[in-house]
């Protein structure tokens, strides 16, 4: 059973392979994403994030989920050497960079709690897999061609409960300037995909690694339990030393 809905400004996919999958359980998963969107969207006035940014909620009244996200964001900032920050120059927060992977991972845990073993949950190209696909094989995940949305340039096989996330832009050719430094071109690197122990870990480190540009792949290389595949603007890819274990 597989369903796609458009939530949090992106396509969200839930596929449950187990024979006893029901529409009710699929609905439960999408309801969770709806909840996350309502709570964390910086673009919805009624979200907790907006209320915090507008000074309407005191820190002691933050919800438990909000406190957890802020803690995780702080931890990621430290681990990524400052290349990850949810606070902008005006002191406003936008935790989306941590919320996406966290939400997918939590949704996948929900699927597991309902009692399913073989499934995947995806939001906007970041994926958590569990068990096997409908052919009883490892999940076959394509890495999108950043220069052509309809193509893939690599296939990775995931047979443990793992996550894969990609950070980058498909934009090609033209100049992308760093908004903070208009003379600096941002896109030596156009995409970096990270395989990790779960999609939350993969997503936050993919985001940080992309911000580091060509140093990003070295950052992933140094993390144990993670592999990465980085594509530069000339269509050349660089991979971490054990990445190919996932391509055979």
């Amino acid at each position, binding site marked *: 059973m597989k369903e796609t809905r458009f939530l949090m400004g992106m396509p969200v996919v839930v596929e449950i392979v187990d024979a006893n999958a029901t529409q009710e359980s699929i609905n439960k998963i999408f309801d969770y994403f709806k909840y996350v969107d309502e709570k964390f969207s910086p673009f919805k006035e009624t979200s907790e994030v907006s209320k915090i940014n507008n000074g309407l909620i005191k820190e002691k009244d933050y919800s438990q989920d909000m406190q957890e996200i802020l803690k995780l964001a702080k931890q990621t900032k430290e681990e990524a050497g400052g290349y990850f920050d949810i606070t902008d120059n005006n002191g406003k927060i936008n935790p989306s960079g941590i919320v996406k992977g966290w939400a997918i991972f939590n949704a996948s845990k929900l699927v597991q709690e309902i009692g399913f073993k073989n499934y995947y949950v995806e939001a906007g190209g970041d994926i958590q897999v569990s068990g096997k696909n409908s052919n009883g094989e490892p999940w076959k995940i394509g890495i999108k061609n950043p220069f052509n949305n309809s193509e893939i*340039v690599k296939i990775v096989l995931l047979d443990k409960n793992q996550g894969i996330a990609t950070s980058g832009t498909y934009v090609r050719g033209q100049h992308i300037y760093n908004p903070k430094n208009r003379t600096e071109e941002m896109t030596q690197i156009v995409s970096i995909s990270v395989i990790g122990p779960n999609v939350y870990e993969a997503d936050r480190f993919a985001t940080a690694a992309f911000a580091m540009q060509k140093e990003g792949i070295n950052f992933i290389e140094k993390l144990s339990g993670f592999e990465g595949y980085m594509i530069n603007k000339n269509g050349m890819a660089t991979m971490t030393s054990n990445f190919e274990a996932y391509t055979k």
Partner: protein
Amino acid sequence: MAGNFKKILLSLTFVVVFGLYVIYQKNTSGGANPVVDTLQTNPSQINNNQDIAMAPMSKKNKFKNGQYTGNSVDAFYGLVQVQAIIAGGKLTDIKFLDYPQVDDASLSRSNHALPILKSEAIQTQSANVNAVSGATETSRAFGESLSSALSQAI
């Protein structure tokens, strides 16, 4: 139903923008764009529909020269806003006025001894997959912002 309509509209916007892109790439004189030269992907593999969708527009609707600022669009990670530069009736450059990114102000990382990592030219794969990992949210916002910029240039 409204959701479906939105989806269709979004897809359509994307096809149009992508088509514009194809035209833009073709109109860019040789050498200006190293990506095209080194990429293993054959440009002719680009979906025919996208070419067809754009063909009438490129002939009939020559853009008016100038700079056009697109809407600021929610990419979930942040806002994307582009400016389209039209010269000689053609899209000649796209500038990013806003782009989601994490703070890069602090810390340059020290480089410890690392193994030399393997590199390869990317190549299109044809096998079927269960799911695709890619950065979709930024490109959707990019498409929306660019199409709103270009709608002012027609």
